[in-house]
Every structure is written in C-alpha cells, then in structure tokens.
C-alpha cells in the first residue's frame, strides 16, 4: 500500500471507527470486526499451544515412584481467547483496529485470536498480514503505536505444533498504551509445503528499530524475517552452527567438582519443572 492514498482516506477511516467505539457499538460492529475474534468462525483451527504436557508430581520418570502421583496429568497450556467486553481501553482499541483493518483491506482473519491476560492484550496475528497490520497500527490516528519496544522470539518446545513464535511489543506514546502482537509460525511446515525454514514478514520497513531485534531473533531462533535489509547474525559469530536459544540446542557446560561432590552441568541436573 503506497503512502499517498492512505493520508486523504484517514478522515473517512476515522469516522466509522469512532461510531463503532461509541454507544450501541456492539450492534453496529462491522462483520469484519467480530468475526476476527469470535470463536467458531475460523474453520476449526487447532488451539494455540504454548507449553508442554506434564506428567506426575515432579515431572520425572523412572524413579520407581509409588506415591500414586505419577498418574497425574496436566495438559499443555493454551492461552484462552478473550470474549467481549475485554475491559478498559481494550474494546476501544480492538474496534479501532477492526475499523482500520476494514479501510486498509486487511482481511479480518489476520487477527486469529485475542487474549487478555494479566492486564495485557495480545493479538495473535497471521504472519502474512503482519506488516500491513503494523503499518495500520502505526499510522492510524486512532491507534498511533509509534514505538516498537521489542521483538522477541519464543520457542515453546520441540513437541509443540507451532513451536516458534515471534512476539512484538508496540507502544503508543500518544495514548500511553501497550499491546502485544504474536505470530505463531507454521513451522515445521506440513508435508509438501515449500518452506522448510520458519519465516515471518519483517517489520523493519515500518519500524526501523526492529532491525537489530529481528537479527537477534534470527540469530537465536533461526526465524527468517523476509524483507529484512540485512538479516545476519548479530550476537553469535557469523559462522556459528545452530540457533542457540532453541529448546533443542543444548546449554552446554561441564561437570564441576565442589566440596568433593561432582555437580553436573545445569541442563543435566534434575529438573522439577
């Protein structure tokens, strides 16, 4: 989307946005606004998984535990979708975002899920619309997220279906708001899919500050940001093998003798997590 057409359209875009946020707003929701978040409209999408299943009391096995707690099973954590009203300024923001998406012709499916947790709002967004969403969030007068505070990769573990996430923390200095965008990357891709590396759109074009953040996420997690001007390693040496912060990358370390006993390296100690 070129820059010129958006500027004159802004007043127009603004008016429906205000109406939605105003009184009797829920009745006047454009279809795009509600479908984005309403559960059930998306075609039976698997829920996001951000964690792993746990078994037993201490999550250890082979210890001959006869306490009966070994049969304990805890499902993997999955962030619950929020339902309207979200509370506080979240509703106004979501309405404004929906209006902005409608005027900028970003499909409503771009926002896959909204989660409100611990006073923070998270938009789980589709990777292919990330850049346009960021542009809308930055440029729309009702949104104005001028500052991209942070971009970070998260690896939720080897067994998680969409294990790599790219997380963006945006700050609106005008309205003093913070939101989080999260892209769950479809990787490892299903069989037959062309892409074998985790890829996300780069947002450097919209937020130049994301340059080093994305390089760091690439360096540590191997997330390839498409459209990044120079995606190279930043903290590790250029010829490094592997992506150190992935969960299947070992921490390393050697056993250390301390007061006569041998202490194993941290990743080989017994974990109760």
């Amino acid at each position, binding site marked *: 989307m070129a820059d010129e057409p958006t500027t004159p359209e802004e007043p127009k875009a603004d008016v429906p946005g205000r109406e939605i946020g105003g009184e009797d707003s829920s009745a006047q929701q454009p279809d795009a606004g509600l479908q984005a978040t309403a559960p059930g409209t998306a075609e039976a999408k698997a829920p996001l998984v951000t964690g792993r299943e746990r078994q037993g009391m201490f999550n250890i096995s082979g210890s001959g535990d006869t306490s009966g707690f070994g049969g304990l099973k805890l499902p993997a*954590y999955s962030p619950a979708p929020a339902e309207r009203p979200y509370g506080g300024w979240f509703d106004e923001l979501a309405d404004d975002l929906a209006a902005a998406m409608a005027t900028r012709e970003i499909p409503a499916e771009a926002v896959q899920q909204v989660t409100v947790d*611990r006073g923070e709002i998270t938009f789980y967004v589709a990777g292919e619309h990330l850049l346009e969403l960021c542009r809308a969030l930055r440029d729309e007068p009702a949104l104005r997220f001028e500052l991209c505070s942070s971009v970070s990769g998260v690896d939720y573990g080897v067994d998680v279906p969409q294990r790599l996430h790219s997380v963006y923390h945006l700050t609106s*200095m005008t309205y003093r708001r913070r939101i989080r965008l999260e892209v769950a990357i479809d990787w490892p891709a299903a069989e037959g899919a062309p892409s074998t590396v985790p890829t996300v759109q780069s947002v450097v074009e919209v937020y130049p*500050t994301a*340059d080093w953040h994305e390089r760091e996420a690439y360096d540590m997690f191997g997330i390839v940001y498409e459209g990044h001007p120079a995606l190279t390693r930043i903290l590790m040496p250029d010829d490094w093998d592997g992506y150190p912060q992935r969960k299947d990358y070992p921490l390393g370390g050697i056993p250390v003798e301390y007061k006569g006993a041998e202490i194993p390296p941290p990743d080989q100690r017994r974990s109760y997590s």
Partner: protein
Amino acid sequence: MTTGNNLSDATTGTDTSPEGSDSRSEAFPAPERETTEGKVYTVTGGDWDDVLEDASNDERIIINLGPQHPSTHGVLRLVLELEGETVTQARSVIGYLHTGIEKNTEYRTWTQGVTFVTRMDYLAPLSNEAAYCLAVEKLLGVEAPRRAQVLRVILLEINRISSHLVALATGGMELGALTAMTSGFREREEALHLLEHLTGLRMNHAFIRPGGLAQDFPADYEVKIKEFLQVMNKRLPDYDKLLTGQPIWRNRLKDVGYLPVDACLALGITGPVLRSAGLAWDLRKVEPYLGYEEYDFEVPTDTAADSFARYLLRLEEMHQSLRIINQALKKLEPGPVMVEDQKIAWPAKLSIGSDGMGNSLEHVRKIMGQSMESLIHHFKLVTEGFQVPAGQVYVPVESPRGELGYHVVSDGGTRPMRVHVREPSFVNLQAMPAMSEGGMIADVIAAVASLDPVMGGCDR
C-alpha cells in the same frame, strides 16, 4: 654471495639494473649537478594540490575502531568508512560480550534468574533485578510489600546516580577530559560503598528477589544514606563548575550526535537521548511502577538533541534522583520486605556468618532440630523452586539508559520458558550511524559516549 656485480644487490635488494636505477621519471625530474662534495640531486615532488586530489578521489579508508579500544565505551567494534577525517559510513559490530544469560535463565529456578539478570547491564544491575522481579511478580499475581517497594526505589535511584556518574566519567575519558573521569569514578565509589553497605555487594547484588527483597536494610541505613545525600549534594555542583562552562567540553559536545525526536522514535531510542530531543518520556512518570507516582520529581528535557544536552540531562537527573531518595526515606515505615506467601518467600531470614551470607542460625537450628516440615519446605523451595502460572508479561522500567523491558514467558513450571530482555543499550546503539555519519571521526566517540551503551547489557 649472489651473482650480481653490485654489493647493493645482495644487501638491500635494490634493483640496480639500468632500468631500475633510473627512477627519475618524466614527471618529477631530479636534476643533478657536480659539486665539490660529490654529485647532488635536486629532488622536487608533485604539486600539493595533485597529491590532495589523488588522496581524496578514491582513497576511502575503512578503519576498525575496537573492539579493544579505550574510546569505544566497552567491547564495541565500530567499522568506519572515512574520507579524510569525515565518516561516510559507520556500522557497529556487537556480540563480543554475549554470555547467553537469557538461555541460562531457562535452566534455573525463577529466584536464581535474578543472579543472572543482574550481571547483564553491570552499571544498572538493580534496574535489571527490579524489572525481572516485577515481571515475575506480575506473572505470579503478587505485589511486594510497601516497605520493599520504597527500598527498591531507594536502591534504583542510588543506582541511577552511580550509572550516570560512570557515563560522565567514561564519556569524559573518551574525550580526553581525565579530570571528569577521576571525579566521576570518585563519586561513583561513594554510591557503590553505600550499595555495598545496604545490599552486601558493590555490584551484581541479587538483592531484589521475586516477592520483595533478600533482606531488610541494615540498622544504620538512614545515617549512611543521609551522609551520601550530603556528599552528593555538595559534589554534584562541582561538575557544573568543572565541565558545563568549559569551552573545550562544550565545543566537543555541542551539535554533535544530533538525533531529533522522529529519528528517536523510528529507531526506538528511549531514555536521556529521547528526552534530549524534547519528548518528556520517562516511564517513572508515564507508566509509574513501584509507587513512583507518589514522588515529586521533574523529568528534565532539552530540545538541542545533541551530546551536550544529554550531558546536562544526566547531571540534572542525578539531582532529581537525590530528591527521590530524600522523599523515600520519609516514606519508610517498618514492615515486612517479602511477601507473606511462604510458598514464594525464601523460608529463612538471611544473616552474615563467618563464611559469608547464609541462612540465619536460628533457622538452621529450627529446620535441623525441631521441624521436619520446615526442613522439607525449605529443601523443596530451594531445590525445586516455586511454580509460576503459565502466561506471558512485558514489564518495562526506566533504567538509566532508557526503557528496560522484560518479556517473561512461563509455561507453568518452576523455570522460565523464556526471558527476553529489551535492553536499552542494544536498541540505542542502532542510532550510532544516524548520529555520526557525515561528521568527523572524533565526533563518533562523543556520539557513542552520549548514547552510553553498556556492552554487558547490549550483548547479554
């Protein structure tokens, strides 16, 4: 020897063949004449303008400044493309101090994480501890008791003063103002002595813990802090006398490292650099945490957006920090410094023994002699740690260098799933090319010094 006829062939390797010996080219003839002393040549060079033209045409020099260079503010490598003394392109290379702290925290309990994060930005360890603990507390849904919050504020502000003093000292040293360096480090030593008295360590305190503090301040904390306030109130004005009006200092810093507000926002720059461009964005004011809204202090700003403005702001921020400490002292009331929840709070009161700090003797006596349950509880909390409900939070605080944000993810275990640090040094360093390209090479040093990156935090 060699087969050549001339001695010079063997000794110096000079080409004495007829072609080689005739080095006098057409362009620069060196006429010779016979004198009583022997043969004398009159050597003339080319025109100086021709030399300059040759040098400036395609003679670009690329120099590596650092990573081991006293003027690059740490193990930072600057790759500068120069034309003469003008920097045409500048790039920074980082990562020399990468220690994998974020990864390491994933293999320790939530409490042990403090010990790691305090070692990142070693000039502002308490900011890191506070931000990390605030993030863990937000995930847990607990809040530190009031006394712990006020004590945290005191620690953070002492830390801010010591950090700004180092910024001033190293920045001065890099520009050749060695008196700024010696005075800056002298005052910083006062701050570190005080921190040592309050927390037990000069740096890397691991004093702020999820849920509160490791322990209360020592009994004579008030006297010591007041002494510190007195000393600083007396000495801080000296910097104005020493540097602010000094012509060399002004000339080196004024209009150097210019970065306006829009560039700051695009590049994500926060902290004194953003405030020097005129935007009063200080998280202590705009998104107060730890009860900062109760304190009366100013957020100094400037509109010059240059290195000199940043120097002035840091100086003024130190005065404001002294004000905050003074008010915090009056707010202190007796009370706990750790949450009541015994599933989070470390089970013992720590005390200093002959072998350093550890569990107090009464506690050891109790768990070893009287209460098996206490022993089990202690053992489980220390080895296993506490579980943190699944979810993610982002907690920003205003560190001396800008927005220090902790993105902490938990999957419900006793160890973090992910701890990502939005380090202001890391982000701010991206502005180095924008601030220094087109200027002189000496100004690169002043610009980087005004960003005040700490490489331990930048590379993590």
